[in-house]
């Protein structure tokens, strides 16, 4: 019998990872829904793409408890909600046997209050077996919504997913999806991937999903993110956060704990790189026209 993580194929490791998280949740009495990757209904992912990590959506009221349970079970925190993603929606853990795990406290693009959104998905949960453990997953229609919203955050857009779960879906499934998108208040982000984003030109989130789905400079993304914030308080928090150095990302990039000097250098580097992006962005918008004129 050999025990080597090197010889374990990723889809196998991910199945065990989902099962392990479910067992942790079961023991602690916590609600999680397995999303994306190997947890997706094969009908929605005919190619069987497994992804690269384990993703679960956690009932928001259970986030602190699952964090404690995971750390006690051998997972180490890799990046936090605050610094892990610009949306602040997911926190990443690493386990020596199962690899990376992302716990989501909400899903970007869903504007319904997170606890109510989770409850809506939980009401219609399905079960699948992964590595012999019964795992809870959203309904196929809800999985389709999540895949399309996920594609909206990719500048390249995971078009294969959008084609399979939306463009090629039959009328009944499209009706289910449309109804759910409405109940989740996710119309703008959904349109960013599925088409029709221009219908939402007057929405405060329009610039954010435009830049996220089509690509743009980091500065443009930050401005769009600030504009999309639901309240003045949220906008101020984002403004205060924008110029900070993301120490977690810097540590992962350097492969060690950054020194004060590293952080200072990074802080000085960022505004310059932002200016560079701004200049390139302006050139893209106006430069060629000036040349032509």
């Amino acid at each position, binding site marked *: *019998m050999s*025990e080597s993580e090197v010889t*374990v194929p990723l*889809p*196998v490791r991910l199945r065990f990872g989902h099962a*392990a998280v479910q*067992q942790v949740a079961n023991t602690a009495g916590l609600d999680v829904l397995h999303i994306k990757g190997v947890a997706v209904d094969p009908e929605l992912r005919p190619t069987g793409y497994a992804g690269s990590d384990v993703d679960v959506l956690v009932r928001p009221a259970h986030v602190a408890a699952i964090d404690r349970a995971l750390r006690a079970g051998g997972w180490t925190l890799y990046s936090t909600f605050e610094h892990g993603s610009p949306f602040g929606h997911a926190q990443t853990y690493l386990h020596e046997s199962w690899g990376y795990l992302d716990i989501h406290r909400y899903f970007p693009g869903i504007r319904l209050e997170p606890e109510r959104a989770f409850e809506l998905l939980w009401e219609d949960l399905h079960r699948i077996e992964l*590595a012999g453990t019964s795992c809870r997953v959203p309904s196929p229609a809800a999985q389709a919504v999540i895949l399309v919203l996920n594609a909206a955050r990719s500048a390249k857009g995971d078009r294969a997913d959008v084609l399979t779960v939306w463009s090629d879906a039959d009328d009944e499934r499209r009706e289910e999806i449309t109804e759910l998108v409405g109940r989740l208040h996710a119309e703008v982000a959904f349109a960013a991937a599925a088409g029709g984003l221009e219908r939402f030109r007057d929405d405060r989130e329009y610039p954010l999903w435009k830049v996220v789905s089509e690509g743009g400079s980091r500065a443009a993304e930050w401005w769009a993110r600030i504009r999309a914030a639901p309240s003045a308080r949220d906008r101020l928090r984002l403004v205060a956060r924008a110029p900070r150095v993301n120490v977690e990302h810097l540590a992962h990039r350097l492969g060690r704990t950054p020194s004060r000097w590293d952080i200072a250098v990074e802080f000085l580097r960022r505004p310059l790189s932002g200016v560079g992006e701004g200049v390139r962005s302006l050139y893209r918008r106006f430069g060629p026209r000036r040349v032509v004129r």
Partner: protein
Amino acid sequence: MAGYRLADAAGVVEHEDVVYVATLPGGPIAVLSGVAGLILLEACDGPATTLVERVAELTAVDPEEIRAHVEGFVGDLVERGLLVREVS
């Protein structure tokens, strides 16, 4: 007749003719390729008393040649908490 079953804390995945088994939720993953995977699956699929004979028949060898290996291997799986001997 009493046999074996996977332990409650064990998970198993079959992938491209290899059996992977792990204790959950802590790990690690054990890779059971070839006859090792066959023995695990066969152990959970019939009486313990005839396991060696069933494996010998499937692999076309003399049971006495493999008895010590099969019994030792299954004992190891039990010791690691992956298999449980059922009580008749």
